[in-house]
C-alpha cells in the first residue's frame, strides 16, 4: 500500500483494475469486505469504505444477503474515466521531466514508439 493516499481509495482502485483487466468480469461477485481486510491487513471499516465508493459510482451493486457484484457496463465506464485522467496522471509529468532533460516532443514521440510493447 502506498503511504501517500487513503487506503480505501487504493482498495477501490485495485478492484477497478481487476474489473478493467477482466479478472473480475461484469456480473461476477467481488470478495467480501472482511476478506479484503484480512488479505490486505487493514481495518474492515476501511475496506468497506473502499467498496462503498464503488457502490456510489455504480461500479458494483449490493445484492442483499448475497454480496457485491460487478455491474453491467462497469468496465466501459471505468475505462472512459481512466482515459479522461490519463493526461494529467501520466502525460503531464512525462512532459515536465522531458523538458527538464531537454527532450523535445518529437524525440519524446520517438522514445514512446521505441518503447512500445508489441501486443
Amino acid at each position, binding site marked *: 500500500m502506498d503511504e501517500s493516499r*487513503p487506503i480505501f481509495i487504493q482498495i477501490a482502485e485495485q478492484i477497478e483494475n481487476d474489473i478493467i483487466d477482466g479478472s473480475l468480469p461484469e456480473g461476477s461477485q467481488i470478495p467480501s469486505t472482511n476478506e479484503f481486510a484480512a488479505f490486505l491487513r487493514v481495518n474492515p471499516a476501511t475496506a468497506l469504505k473502499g467498496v462503498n465508493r464503488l457502490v456510489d459510482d455504480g461500479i458494483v451493486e449490493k445484492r442483499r444477503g448475497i454480496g457485491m457484484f460487478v455491474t453491467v457496463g462497469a468496465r466501459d465506464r471505468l475505462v472512459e474515466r481512466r482515459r479522461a485522467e490519463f493526461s494529467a496522471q501520466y502525460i503531464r509529468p512525462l512532459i*515536465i521531466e522531458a523538458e527538464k532533460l531537454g527532450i523535445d516532443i518529437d524525440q519524446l514521440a520517438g522514445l514512446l514508439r521505441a518503447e512500445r510493447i508489441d501486443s
Partner: protein
Amino acid sequence: MTPTVVRVDGLTKRYGSFTALDRVTFDLEENRIYGLLGRNGAGKTTIMQLLTGQLFPSDGEIEVFGRTPAEHADVLRRMCFIAESQRYPEDFTAAHVLKAAPWFFENWDAAFAERLVADFRLPLKRRIKKLSRGQLSAVGVIVGLASRAPLTFFDEPYLGLDAVARHIFYDRLLEDYAEHPRTVVLSTHLIDEVANLLEHVILIDQGRILLDRDAEEVRGTASTVAGPRATVEQFVADRPVIGREALGGLASVTIDGRLDQADRVRAAELGLELAPVSLQQLIVHLTGTDLAGSTEQEAAA
C-alpha cells in the same frame, strides 16, 4: 450514529504536583479499533487505568457503557485490560490463566484460546515466571483476544514478541474482530505495523490530546517537500509547517494538510520532491521536542 461506549470529559489525573493527564476529552464509539499513541510517559496507561476503574480521576468525568467504571461490576465485566507487565499469582501456569479466564469474561471462547495457544506455541504447563518475555506477552494477547470483551485494551501487548508472533496477533485480531465486532484500544510504539489496522487515532503527549482523528484522515495529511531551500520555502509559504530540516542550500520541510493534484503538478514544475509522511513519522514530528509548542496549536486548530 454509532453508540458511544466511552465518554471522557475534562479528565485530569494529578500525582502531587505532577499532572499526568490534563483536561482530556474524547469519546470512543462502539465496534471500532482505536490507536492510543504517544511517547513513553505521555499518559496512555493512565487513561486506560482510569477507564478500567483501577485509578480514580482527580477531576473530570468518565462514563463507560453509560456509567462510572469504578466499583460497577456490570461495567467492569464488559472490559478486558491487557497490561504491559501483567502479574499472575505465584506458581500459576498458562493453563491456570486460561482456566480462570471464563470466570471473568462472559464471552470467553475456549476453542479460540486453544487455537491461539497453538499459533503462539505457548507451553501451557510451564510456570509463568519461567516463561520468556515473549511467551508472557503471548499469554496476555491470548486472554485479550479470546475474552471477546466488548471493550478490550491492549497496552503495549507485545514486548518480546517476534515479528512472526506479532503478525499472528494482527491477523487473528482482524479476523476475530470481523466476526465479533467490538471496541478495541491498542496502545503501541510500533505505529507503522498497526497503522492500517486502526480506524481512529488518538495521539497524546504530556497528558494532553494532540490529535483525535480517523486514521484515513490522518493518512496523506502530511507531506515532506524537498528541494532548493528558496523554492521549498516559496511552496510551503502559506502552509502549516510541522518539521524543518536543512542541509546547505537544500531544505526538507514537512507540512500538514493534504496536497491536491494541482499542488503536485506545481511541485513537479518547480522541481520539488514530494514524499508521503507515514503515521509514525507524523507522530515523531508532532511529539518531537523541537516544534512541540507550535504544533500543539496547529493540531488543535
